[in-house]
């Protein structure tokens, strides 16, 4: 009886470990990004149809990115101006916007070798450096900013020294400013963009 319980227990542990490979890797920030890279290559493979790619991307974003934190940063000073309802609407739309934008943007990625080159602490965060080796030309540096210990969430991605988070913030700030400082205008435009994309 006890032996059977132990066996079932061991099996459960094994299933859990196998089911969450990232959690097992999570002690190591480099391992986290390396695994993510492998998954991304599968997700982004040129043969994957757009709808499926978007669905997988949605899961990936949700699991591995600090979306509330990124969303708040991206809204910048307007986060405090926004009503709780606007904040909630914005976060939901922003997440979907990211999925659409990046699944298309990275769809061109031809599966060039991706390798993790290092990791260093940066205050509360850990920066994992990596590069995408192109067959023609110099490699593209991609830096991943991670928070957490044991399990990680991505807070920003730098490509060739350009922050995705800052770029997004600058764009959204411009949209809000050009619409009289109204967060509602940004939300309306996001909604419109997503509707137009189908």
């Amino acid at each position, binding site marked *: 009886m006890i032996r059977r319980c132990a066996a079932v227990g061991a099996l459960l542990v094994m299933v859990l470990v196998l089911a969450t490979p990232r959690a097992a890797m999570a002690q190591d920030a480099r391992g986290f990004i390396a695994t993510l890279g492998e998954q991304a290559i599968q997700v982004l493979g040129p043969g994957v149809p757009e709808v499926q790619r978007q669905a997988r991307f949605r899961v990936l974003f949700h699991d591995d990115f600090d979306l509330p934190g990124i969303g708040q*940063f991206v809204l*910048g*000073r307007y986060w405090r*101006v926004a009503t709780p309802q606007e904040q909630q609407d914005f976060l939901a739309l922003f997440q979907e916007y990211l999925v*659409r*934008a990046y699944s*298309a*943007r990275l769809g*061109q990625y031809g599966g060039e070798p991706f390798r993790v080159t290092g990791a260093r602490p*940066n*205050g509360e*965060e850990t*920066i994992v*450096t990596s590069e995408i080796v192109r067959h*023609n*030309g*110099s*490699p*593209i*540096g991609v*830096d991943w*900013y991670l928070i957490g210990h044991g399990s990680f969430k991505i807070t*920003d991605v*730098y490509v*060739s*020294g*350009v*922050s995705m*988070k*800052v*770029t997004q*913030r*600058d*764009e*959204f*700030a*411009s*949209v*809000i*400013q*050009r619409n*009289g*400082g109204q967060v509602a205008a*940004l939300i309306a*435009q*996001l909604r419109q*963009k997503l509707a137009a994309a189908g």
Partner: protein
Amino acid sequence: MRVRRLPLILIGLLVAGLAVSGCAAPGASSDPGAAQSASAADDFNDPYEETNRGVFGFNQAVDEAVLVPVAKTYRTVLPPPVRQSVHDFLQNLDGPVIFANDMLQGEVKLAGNTLARLLLNTTVGIGGMFDVATLIGIPYHSNDLGITFAVWGFAAGPYVIVPVLGPSNPRDLAGRVGDGFGDPANYFASAHMLWAVVARTATTGIDERSRNIESLADIERTALDNYATIRSLYRQRREAQIRHEQSNLPNPTPIQGGDGAADPSLSYSIAK
């Protein structure tokens, strides 16, 4: 061509800049939302945003009508190895200017790399047509006088969109002019064959555009505000180049911290 026309544009810009820098923040008083929302002049170092957006629209139209079709044809007609050789050749031509700027910035190691690349690629790489240096582990890096000015402490001045050339600022424009004058290839060519200068400029443009067709189209398609996105990308990319690193060290500070507001001191860059 590049050398002749740019000073005129630059002088025009500087005069315009001088005229406006005497006034208060442009448009601030007439903007009803100014009380709550900071203007683009503060956040994005872009006091001439409306003019810039106009020129940006013009550039987009030229891009769509001329550059993209030419770049696409270029890509269809020439096979990848040929295009790669064209690219490597043009990049090798930039060697002397990159070397000079490496030195001006005191980046001795980078200068050594550039010199080694130049020697290797010009000889073993048959006049620069093959980038052998990258193959043996001496990768290309860009450098220009705009970066040198930045390293020396000059302010960027306001963001400007130059017709056809695209995003820039007085510091980078002055750098382009200086690089053009200082380029030994231009000296040689303008004395013996002016057409070569024109051909080089045109081919460089086509090569560059043909490498960015998808990524730029994608930004345009997904962006809510394409102009603002490009402006942000330009500023960040230049800052990264000035730091001489692909990767980024400091954590980005929020807009309130004024990381993008940087330097509205146009008077300073003119005074120098």
